[in-house]
């Protein structure tokens, strides 16, 4: 259950920084069958939330049409030094939390 996060370590106050995230996940759609015809149950990441020093700054609701190993890139304004926390939650109790530090000058 690996997650990759790309956040700049340093930014100027007020700068818009790009954040890239990738989480390892099959994103099984629920529409496929095995060769024996048995339906494979859905198993997807349904939700992604990014908080900046505890305040939610970005959220995504995902559906089976998101490719395996969901990649999400977005941006945020560097307002203060602190921690960005990323949480992915999904079917069958899937939950992964990662964080990254940013220093704002």
């Amino acid at each position, binding site marked *: 259950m690996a997650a990759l996060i790309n956040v700049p370590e340093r930014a100027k106050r007020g700068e*818009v*920084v790009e954040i890239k995230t990738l989480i390892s996940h099959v994103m099984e*759609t*629920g*529409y*496929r*069958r*095995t*060769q024996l015809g048995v339906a*494979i149950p859905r198993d997807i990441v349904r939700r992604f939330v990014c908080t*900046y020093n505890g*305040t939610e*700054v*970005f*959220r*995504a*609701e*995902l*559906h*089976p*049409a*998101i*490719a*395996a190993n*969901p*990649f*999400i*890139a*977005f*941006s*945020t*304004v560097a*307002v203060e030094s602190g921690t960005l926390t990323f949480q992915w939650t999904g079917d069958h109790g899937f939950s992964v939390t990662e964080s990254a530090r940013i220093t704002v000058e």
Partner: protein
Amino acid sequence: LAAGIGALIAVGPADATPAAMQDAIRKVVGSARVNPGRVKLDLPPLSENGNAVPLTVSVESAMSPADHVKAIHVFNEKNPQPDVASFYLGPRAGRATVSTRIRLADTQTVVAIAELSDGSFWSARAAVVVTLAACLEDA
């Protein structure tokens, strides 16, 4: 009519249709008018692999507390279900741009709709030709 189609989607994996997509869009925008413009939807015109098609949506917006993009919704017309993803942002995003990778089960049109803080909705559409479709292979 819209309610009937909605019930059909809720029941099972019937293929989404352009009508089902319109219904899914209605669920999000309600009775508001969806204007063309202000949204840029970047998708490759030809995709060899429908399992991972890069998508970027950008919206023209000042992204200030008074005037910003609240949400970006993405829909498709021919996957088993019309919803792709919804992204919720705000003035702290600084820039109204999001990227991800999506699955496309067939050659089709993808629609992105932006919801602005003033309650208006703006949209863009893009046609993608898919040579290898997602969702069809057996495990």
